[in-house]
């Protein structure tokens, strides 16, 4: 009935397909990895760039946003950082030169892939999100990234920084795939930041495997000069009594798609996904989540706040799936947006797919303007309108930032928030 449309048809799609054809023979990894890459490329080849006919990408049409695919950087290592910072420059990993905390092991993914065990390969190429065209393209093409291993029981107090940067020459694309393995009962925190001095199309994937009773907290933040186009994929599997929390702070970049595929695979797994997006001009930011509870007693919390000015557009699509056996799941999802301008827009689409009968799951989504009653209340105390608006917006966003455990990061994000508001007011 439905004739399958020719998948690869745009100039950008052709360029991406060509880049795989050129690169595939030289990509790291043995036969097993090569096989996975070929299959992943087939997925991409069959689907092409995500477009509005793909439900999960309806509001972020990459065929449209990516008229041209920039050449993918070949990349080279850079000078190592002295602190606990891994640099992914043009998609290539440079490990830090400092001594690492006990229980932490870092390996460039290109090295880990040479002679990778089946377990590692399995963890690096999970089934979650695998049929998404951009995740598939990432799997096919990623040359490098970092492998972060936290030994069972290790408590890593220092935050591990993942700093994504790129060279400043010509527009280019970069691709990386990183894996974080957190052993039983271990604890660690990771912050990833994304800079790009020139026009960059970035496709980065970060995959987490969190074993029983382990805990991992993750922060994603944009930098002043963020990529022009960024598809950021987060995949996580959370074990029994383990906890995973991820918080995104987005204030820069032109087109950003953040997609998270998170699965609670052990009983009493705790998942928390949160975010603040401050968008203005023509910025477009899309947060798409698939949270899956596969076993009983799981808990998930999602809280996303978006502030939109100018002609910015925001998307929140959150799907919570509760599998038939996942009784006693406790899920709560909330997306709230404030529109500061008539030309800004927000699409909110929370969804629940519940196949178990004994669960507590709720969701709420709101889009609105600043509340005039609140503004008047502050003005009646002597606070000028612009400052009153700033306080209300700041309070709105701070409700999310309060969840950042690392005080240094919390304060930095708070300062960025204040700075964004100050620039708006001036």
């Amino acid at each position, binding site marked *: 009935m439905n004739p399958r449309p020719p998948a690869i048809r745009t100039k950008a799609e052709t360029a991406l397909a060509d880049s795989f054809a050129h690169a595939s023979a030289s990509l790291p990894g043995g036969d097993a990895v090569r096989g996975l890459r070929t299959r992943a490329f087939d997925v991409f080849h069959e689907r092409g760039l995500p477009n509005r006919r793909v439900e999960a990408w309806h509001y972020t049409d990459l065929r449209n946003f990516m008229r041209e695919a920039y050449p993918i950087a070949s990349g080279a290592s850079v000078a190592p950082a002295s602190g606990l910072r891994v640099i992914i420059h043009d998609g290539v990993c440079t490990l830090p030169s400092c001594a690492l905390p006990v229980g932490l092991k870092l390996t460039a993914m290109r090295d880990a892939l040479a002679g990778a065990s089946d377990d590692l390969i399995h963890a690096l190429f999970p089934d979650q999100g695998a049929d998404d065209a951009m995740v598939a393209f990432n799997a096919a093409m990623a040359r490098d990234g970092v492998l972060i291993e936290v030994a069972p029981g290790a408590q890593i107090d220092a935050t591990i920084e993942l700093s994504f940067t790129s060279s400043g020459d010509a527009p280019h694309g970069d691709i990386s795939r990183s894996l974080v393995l957190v052993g039983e009962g271990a604890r660690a925190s990771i912050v990833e930041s994304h800079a790009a001095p020139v026009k960059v199309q970035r496709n980065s994937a970060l995959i987490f495997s969190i074993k029983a009773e382990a805990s991992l907290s993750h922060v994603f933040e944009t930098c002043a000069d963020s990529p022009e186009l960024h598809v950021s994929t987060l995949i996580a599997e959370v074990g029994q009594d383990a906890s995973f929390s991820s918080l995104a702070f987005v204030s820069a970049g032109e087109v950003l798609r953040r997609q998270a595929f998170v699965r609670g695979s052990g009983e009493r797994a705790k998942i928390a996904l949160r975010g603040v997006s401050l968008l203005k001009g023509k910025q477009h930011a899309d947060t798409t989540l698939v949270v899956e509870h596969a076993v009983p007693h799981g808990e998930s919390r999602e809280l996303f706040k978006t502030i939109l000015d100018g002609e910015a557009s925001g998307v929140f699509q959150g799907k919570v799936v509760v599998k038939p056996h996942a009784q006693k799941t406790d899920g709560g999802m909330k997306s709230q947006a404030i529109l500061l301008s008539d030309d800004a827009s927000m699409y909110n689409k929370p969804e629940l797919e519940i196949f178990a009968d004994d669960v507590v799951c709720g969701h709420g989504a709101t889009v609105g303007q600043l509340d005039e009653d609140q503004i008047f209340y502050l*003005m009646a105390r002597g606070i000028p309108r612009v400052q009153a608006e700033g306080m209300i917006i700041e309070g709105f966003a701070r409700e999310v930032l309060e969840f950042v455990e690392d005080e240094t990061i919390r304060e930095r994000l708070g300062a960025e928030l204040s700075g964004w508001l100050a620039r708006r007011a001036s």
Partner: protein
Amino acid sequence: MLTITDLHANIDGKEILKGLSLTVKPGEVAAIMGPNGSGKSTLSYVVAGRDGYEVTEGSIVLNGEDILAMDAHERAAKGIFLAFQYPLEIPGVTTMTFLKAAMNAQRKQRGEEELTTPDFIKRVRAAADKLGVSQEMLRRALNVGFSGGEKKRMEVLQMVLLEPKIAILDETDSGLDIDALRIVAEGVNALRSPDRSFLVITHYQRLLDYIVPDSVHVLSAGRIVKSGDKELAHELEKNGYRDYVADAA
């Protein structure tokens, strides 16, 4: 202190205040009583300078200065304080942050030095203790999750800290039990002084047993229809607003 003359005000094209005149002298406590919907809150909003109201006729003069062209924050800095009938919740903004922003915003407009943090904290502590506002409440987001009584006490705390020239209390008694009412009234009475005036808006006479007014005015259908001394409040308590509602119709 405050002179309102022949005030007409519309909201959404509907005239709510229809020729209201009222004078409050320095040090005077004037009570405004009236049935629901008579325009009491509207009067408080128009005096405080809320956007969205259109004043079509009349004037509001504070200490010789016409304030109608001023924004709400400017009027606040000039000494007008409105204790809200329904105080707003401001999520994510702690009460302390808000208090400091408000006090300093007013000082800045008046060309005064900003408060130092120790001075600010000292003032808040002293006022909070008197009103039974806990430190824990001050650390929470403004009014978020506060009970009705806590919100009203927070309004009085703000009034104490901002030291207004004229304070308008819009049904500050509603939703208060007798103990909370007494605390609030004590807070107000402690601020009474020859150069500070109050406009106490209430639906019931009860509050006026604690805050004894110098004058009582009946507001009905957007106008002051009768003025008198505190005996008028007792009369209203006995007979209700029937006579005045009928008058206005």
